[in-house]
């Protein structure tokens, strides 16, 4: 399973719509087995979504993302975990541990939205012991 995170200065990029660098973490049996970084498609959101799909990304953990862009990404069968902040390595570790709901990883002003995500279909997955 491949998890993608847009990054900027080692942290999750503040806005997915305009981010430029993408970090990919390959997960096997609940552990990160490889990490790579690459330039991310600029321009149309559909180009970004297509690049994610071609890279085989299953989950996208990102900062702020506008609604139309999020729906374009989810239309490609990619789960989006939005409005996350923090250092990239700590975020992926928290996702694997199932502690991404911790307020320290949630962007300011987004607690309500994250709560809705927990109870809705975009439930934050538990990495370890979950699907790999």
């Amino acid at each position, binding site marked *: 399973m491949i998890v993608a995170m847009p990054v900027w200065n080692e942290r999750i990029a*503040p806005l997915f*719509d305009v981010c430029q660098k993408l970090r990919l973490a390959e997960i096997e049996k609940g552990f990160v087995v490889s990490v790579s970084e690459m330039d991310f498609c600029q321009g149309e959101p559909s180009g970004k979504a297509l690049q994610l799909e071609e890279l085989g990304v299953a989950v996208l953990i990102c*900062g702020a993302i*506008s*609604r*139309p862009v999020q729906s374009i990404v989810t239309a490609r069968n990619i789960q989006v975990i939005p409005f996350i902040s923090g250092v990239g390595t700590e975020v992926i570790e928290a996702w694997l541990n199932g502690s991404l709901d911790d307020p320290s990883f949630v962007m*300011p*002003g987004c607690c309500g*939205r994250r709560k809705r995500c927990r109870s809705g279909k975009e439930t934050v997955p538990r990495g370890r012991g979950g699907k790999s």
Partner: protein
Amino acid sequence: MKRTLRVDGTSMNRKNKKRLDHLENPTEAILESISDGVFTVDLDWRITSFNRAAEEITGIGREEALGRTCSEVFRSSMCEVDCALRQTLKTGKSIINKSCFIVDAEGRRIPISVSTAVLRDSNNRIVGGAETFRDLSEIEELRKELEGRFQIGDLVSRSQSMQKVFEIIPAAAASATTVLLQGETGTGKELLARAIHDLSPRKNQPFIAVNCGAFPDTLLESELFGYKAGAFTGASRDKPGRFALARGGTLFLDEIGEVSSALQVRLLRVLQERVFEPLGSVRSEKSDARIIAATNRNLVSEVKKGNFREDLFYRINVIRIDLPPLKRRKEDIPLMVDHFVARFNRIQQKRISGVAPEVMALLMAHDWPGNVRELENVIERAFVLCSEGRIKPNHLPEEFTARAPALDCGENIKSARHLVEAQAIRDALKRNGNNRLAAARELGIHKSTLFRKMKALGIIPPDTDGRSSRT
């Protein structure tokens, strides 16, 4: 600032005044009362103050914002690559009214304008920066409302032929029926399809576009219907097709006239029965995507020639919209030029004020075989070459200026315009078999204006009028 603060309260509401009564610091009082958002940061980019308007515009309480990195609170489109505050702290110069957008916690894009300044302590040392931002949502809405008469989505026009198209769009958007768009290449078929989608009840669902002419037959089949793992060599995992991706939304099939006969049969089945089978699958999947098809061919004649299935044609030809070529609606060129100049100014952060009159004359005289797309490319090219002021003839591709050699000889603007106008009139008369009424219509001017211009420019009226020779 938008309004003057008077502490006697005449320019602030009672609620704000009550709040101010409890404040001892007048600077804080001012910041609390204004309608522009203001925040300050220290040298580590952490927010040190966040006023009431900033709370309202971003939807973030100051208790959550204070101490956090500004990019994670503000999350604007320029934070990552083009931060105005970073630039100000680097150069010491303020930036005024830079446009961008922020995304709030609900995922809404809010257009804003940003101004910045350096913060210094009593020893004149830089201790951080201040950013002021103004919510432009209302202004943007008003602008859209004003332009709305001549604009739907990214389609801009005031010509009669396009007004007819604009009248059909809302009805087409409200229904879920199949739409067929016909028009020359570059006339804006995809823009029209997007406009229909954006006005439809499916607007929050995906809009998926596929160019049927861009894929070989076998690839197009897997692209449209998807495949299951193991369906063929290299298919290591399931891949959803465009019909599946467009579920609940709109599927735009561009260049449908290029689809092979075999695939036409499969498409017909999906449109009739609303089910399809991914390659390698034994189970059918349902499709509720709304179909908008487009072509630059005349499908009626393709049906007659036997190149396009009649049953498929009738299935997609429920609502048909014909997009006129740009040469038939030249009166739209000035409006479109304004639209593209505004758009590229926004995208490229430039301040190009428009095009020079002689440039407009050259654009009006051109035939536009590539239609709106060609015009957009010409303006985009000019933006690369023009750094400020107005776009001039030397910013246009050579084929435009080659038609008017006098432009390079230091002629004044008036005579240059006359040359181009004369050329445009001669071309229009030639194209319309000397029919002056048709030529005037094509040029987007009244027939009496055409006669007046012909007389002034010394164009000898043709011996035979196209209209009389036809009848």
